[in-house]
Structures are given as C-alpha cells and as structure tokens.
C-alpha cells in the first residue's frame, strides 16, 4: 500500500480524474472529499463488505429444498 501524508485542505490526484481532499481533521475522525467521474462508484468499505458477504451467503443455498417444500402446499 502506498502511504502519503497530507494536511488539511491538501489533496491527492488518482488516475488524472479522481481528486481526494482532506477537508477536516477532528480527533480520530477525518472528513474526506472526493471528486470523481459520476460513473465511478464510491462506497464505505464496511457497507461494500456487507454486500459482498450477502452475495457469498446467497450462493450457499442449503435450505432451497426446504423452501420449495414450504411454498408448494
């Protein structure tokens, strides 16, 4: 991983079209501004991981036979 130090109001440019700016530093929390093309999806990682896990869980369909039975009658 590339690690760069930045101060408040300093930025990074990624790939010519994404700009990340440190807007505010307050104790343990950092507010980050991101300017990117609108088709670039940006997610909080913990939410992304939740959806990824849900996709994995959906593939393990242990109860599908039981579900079919439940809905049949």
């Amino acid at each position: 991983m590339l690690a760069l130090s930045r101060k408040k109001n300093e930025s990074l440019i990624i790939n010519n079209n994404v700009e990340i700016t440190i807007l505010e530093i307050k104790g343990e929390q950092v507010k980050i501004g991101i300017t990117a093309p609108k088709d670039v999806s940006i997610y909080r990682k913990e939410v992304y991981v939740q959806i990824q896990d849900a996709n994995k869980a959906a593939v393990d369909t242990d109860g599908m036979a039981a579900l079919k039975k439940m809905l049949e009658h």
Partner: protein
Amino acid sequence: MTITTKVFGEISIDDERIINFPGGIIGFPDLTQFAMLHDEEDDVASIHWLQSIQEPAFAMPVIDPLIVMENYNPEVEDELLKPLGDIKPEELLVLVTLTVPQDLTKMTVNLKGPIIINAGNRTACQTIIDGEEYKVKFPIYDILQARKAGE
C-alpha cells in the same frame, strides 16, 4: 453455447440470453457474465437463478423485491446507471438476492444491494442504496408465510 450450472447441470443457452455485468457484481469484479435461469416445471414463488457463466459453482437465487416489499422504491442516481445504456422504463428489471439457510426462519433478501438489469441490451450492475432504509439482511420468512396463507 453450453454452460455448466450449479443447479441444472450442463445446459445449452442462446448467446442472446447472456447478461453482461461490465463491473462484475459487488465483491466479485471478475464475474461479468450471467444467465438468468428458471425451472419451469418447478415454479416456486418466482425464484430465478442468476448463474455465473465463468464460475459454474456461483449462482444466486433472485426474486422480484415487490414480492416481499410492495413499496420497494430505492433511489439510484442516474449516473450510476449510465454504464447500462439507454433504459426504457418497461425494460428496467430490478431483482434482489435471496439467502436461504437450512433454517428457513433466517431467510433474508438483500434490499440494500439490488441487481439492476437493462433487459433491452442485457447489461446489468449491482448497486448499493444509500441510507438506512433498506437492509442487507431483510427477513422474509414471515412475509412468505403470510403470502402463502393469503393465497
């Protein structure tokens, strides 16, 4: 073409039935081609399978979210749908994945990460809905039981 599927073994499908996910699905960027499969003899609550073409073991059951939430209407920014091309409203298809564990009472759908398909050009994506309104693990056992009782 012939594909190997998780649920239906080896089957033959028309190339025109392949759905392209240019960005893959969330957490699986390499899975860019899927087919929607349905067992016609075993029609249960409109469950379809989103089967990966590239990875035979990867298939997710999907359903129409309106089956479990009548007023499901997530807000998706137009820009996020741009990669899907021009979408006619009647060709917009929204599906949610279904998780079916052994204990059916723990069955859920993912309302926060819907699959959005442009049926016109068979291009699709999975997106994440902002906010707290829609849950990743929305329980549906009681809802399906109630629907069944009402039939």
